[in-house]
């Protein structure tokens, strides 16, 4: 078992590291302070193919694998949680389901522009009454002649208003399953600018403040019949499969935040002098850093393992990596929260000052334990698989 990256992944990592250091890092503090979406960074990423890393070349992508995309997410998240989640929602939550469940026509229409970063992607599942209880969907889609008519709203949508293409989950009817009535849920592709599709509240958040988090509002929004994604009634499964991939993205975001915070803290503890020596010379500091490093390395292994499991599946619709993804996200998110919090502590008073990146990383880390499936849901997935 080879735990080292091969040459192409090593080269890819150094590309992503350079890009993150030179292009992403300089803006990280500013976009957080100003709650500004890093549009200019997205454009630069698009120029180098980073918005379509996993998309096959024939669809305008880079033709690389999930592991490569994860390395990109990791390096970016080390310096900016906001930019990382923008990439994650675009790649894992929008490109991935279209590649997996889309018709050839849909792929031809949407994928090249998404892969080249000309269009940005997003995913709308969550509603005010449907978070962890995703079945609590109320947004409706009714077929009227050649069009689906959407009514309802989504909340907390990452890349909201900035994105051009949205995967929207909606209720299309009721079905009977084992004598009980259940919602029939389907998935749709909706483009920004469609009449009846507007944006509501922009959320003010604790962290990833530059990420555009918006309410989506559908009022008699009409989309072509052919914009249903996958078969009617398969939407819930599509959403769950999509979230499996998304969890790998978020796990990587969490991993990067933890590693980035740790790197800064190692440097800080070497320089900071108290009581006549650098604080890195105190055993308490050393033991703390050892713990944090081990947690990060363990998280990294789980993340890479999940990425490799997804690579083995390719764009197959079967859900073969749900558990790996859940473990990676559960562990990496809790690691991120633990590591960033302790890194703030190791910085002392300076850790609380906004000029020091660790405080932003701690604020950014919290959401990784919540979105795209809470830590509690991760535990449900893992235990269900264990106990079946």
């Amino acid at each position, binding site marked *: 078992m080879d735990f080292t990256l091969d040459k192409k992944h090593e080269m890819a990592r150094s590309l992503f590291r350079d890009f993150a250091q030179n292009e992403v890092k300089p803006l990280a503090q500013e976009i957080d302070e100003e709650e500004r979406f890093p549009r200019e960074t997205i454009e630069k990423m698009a120029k180098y193919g980073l918005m379509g890393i996993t998309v096959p070349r024939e669809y305008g992508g880079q033709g690389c694998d999930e592991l490569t995309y994860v390395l990109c997410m990791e390096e970016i998240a080390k310096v900016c949680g906001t930019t990382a989640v923008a990439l994650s929602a675009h790649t894992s939550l929008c490109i991935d389901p279209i590649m997996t469940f889309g018709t050839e026509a849909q792929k031809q229409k949407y994928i090249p522009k998404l892969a080249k970063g000309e269009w940005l992607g997003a995913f709308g599942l969550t509603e005010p009454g449907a978070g962890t209880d995703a079945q609590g969907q109320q947004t409706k889609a009714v077929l009227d002649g050649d069009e689906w008519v959407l009514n309802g709203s989504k909340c907390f949508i990452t890349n909201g208003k900035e994105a051009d293409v949205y995967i929207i989950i909606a209720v299309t009817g009721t079905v009977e399953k084992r004598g009980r009535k259940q919602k029939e849920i389907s998935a749709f592709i909706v483009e920004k600018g469609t009449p009846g599709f507007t944006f509501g509240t922009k959320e003010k958040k604790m962290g990833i403040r530059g990420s555009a988090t918006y309410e989506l509002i559908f009022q008699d929004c009409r989309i072509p019949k052919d914009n249903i994604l996958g078969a009617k009634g398969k939407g819930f499964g599509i959403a769950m499969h999509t979230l499996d991939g998304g969890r790998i993205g978020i796990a990587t975001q969490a991993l990067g935040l933890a590693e980035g915070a740790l790197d800064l803290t190692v440097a800080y503890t070497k*320089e*900071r*002098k108290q009581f006549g020596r650098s604080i890195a010379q105190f055993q308490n500091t050393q033991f703390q850093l050892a713990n944090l490093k081990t947690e990060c390395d363990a998280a990294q292994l789980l993340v890479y393992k999940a990425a490799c499991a997804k690579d083995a599946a390719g764009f197959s619709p079967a859900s073969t990596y749900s558990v790996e993804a859940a473990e990676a996200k559960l562990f990496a998110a809790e690691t991120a929260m633990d590591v960033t919090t302790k890194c703030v502590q190791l910085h002392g008073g300076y850790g609380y000052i906004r*000029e020091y990146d660790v405080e932003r990383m701690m604020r950014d880390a919290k959401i990784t334990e919540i979105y795209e499936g809470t830590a509690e849901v991760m535990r449900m997935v893992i235990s269900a698989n264990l106990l079946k």
Partner: protein
Amino acid sequence: MKAVKKMSLEDYKGVFIYAQQVDNHIDNIAFELLGKAKDLAKPLNTQVTAVLLGYQVGNLTDELAEYGADRVIVVDDPELKEYRTEPYAHALASVIEKYKPEIVLVGATAIGRDLGPTVSARVHTGLTADCTSLDIGDFPLQPKPNQEQKHNQLLMTRPAFGGNTIATIACPDNRPQMSTVRPGVMQKITPVKGAKAEVIEYNPGFTPNDRYVTIEKVVKKVTETVDIQKAKILVSGGRGVGSAENFKILKDLADVLGGEVSSSRAAVDNGWVPKDLQVGQTGKTVRPQIYFAIGISGAIQHVAGMEDSDLIIAINKDESAPIFDVADIGIVGDLNKIVPKLTADIKAELAKKA
């Protein structure tokens, strides 16, 4: 490449310098090279020759004599009006082939670093770039068994590896021994008014060929906006400077040294200087040749941005200021008295040398 005739090294005599001129005005580097050439010529018991290439440059020979040239070889030709690699290389290489110097010094300028390598390759000899010292000595430095120790060799010392290694180079088996030297490294002599040199006019003939380029346009530089990361000398002020007005004494010091003013975060936060002058963790990282830290305490956030400077000079009234942990020279005292005095002292020193 024409075949190299086996030369007898003893045939090569004399210390030559390339007298760089632009717009028929001799560059200061030429005088500095002459100063060093005189030093080298003494133990070699030989004379100093300046090689002057250009068009209508005959009137410049006296100035070269005043700065130490015993002899000036002038190659005067319309093809040499403005610097171009090929006619200049042909001129200098021809002079070398005909007059056989044992040493040739060239300024490490944008001209010299193009002319030097081209000529040294043309005459099949070694070239050592950016020398910081030149001496006459033995090679090998210590006698070695089974190896001839040659005497009266030019020993050329230069930094490499980004300035982190110092190497001493010799060119024992080829002539001339060639070296380029940066401006400001060697000393020119006090000019001897009325000194005259032997003037030799030489023209090897210039036949334009494919290697001659055409000059379409000459564009002189306009002064650019300040980029502290490009400055070779930074005079940096901190909280101790006290006010925006008082930054003037730092500016005066910077001006006299040809440097720029920069600052710590405190000065920026107090509104005394603009943010683009800020050095430090939340400002810019700089690596100048000299960094003056004036009235700067030296907190790690600042030091992180300048600790790789070649020479750090700190002035602070507090002897326990952490800046003194990284300064090469630390002066505990009142910057308001020291800085203006330093500026005056430097002005006097420069006036002496001009």
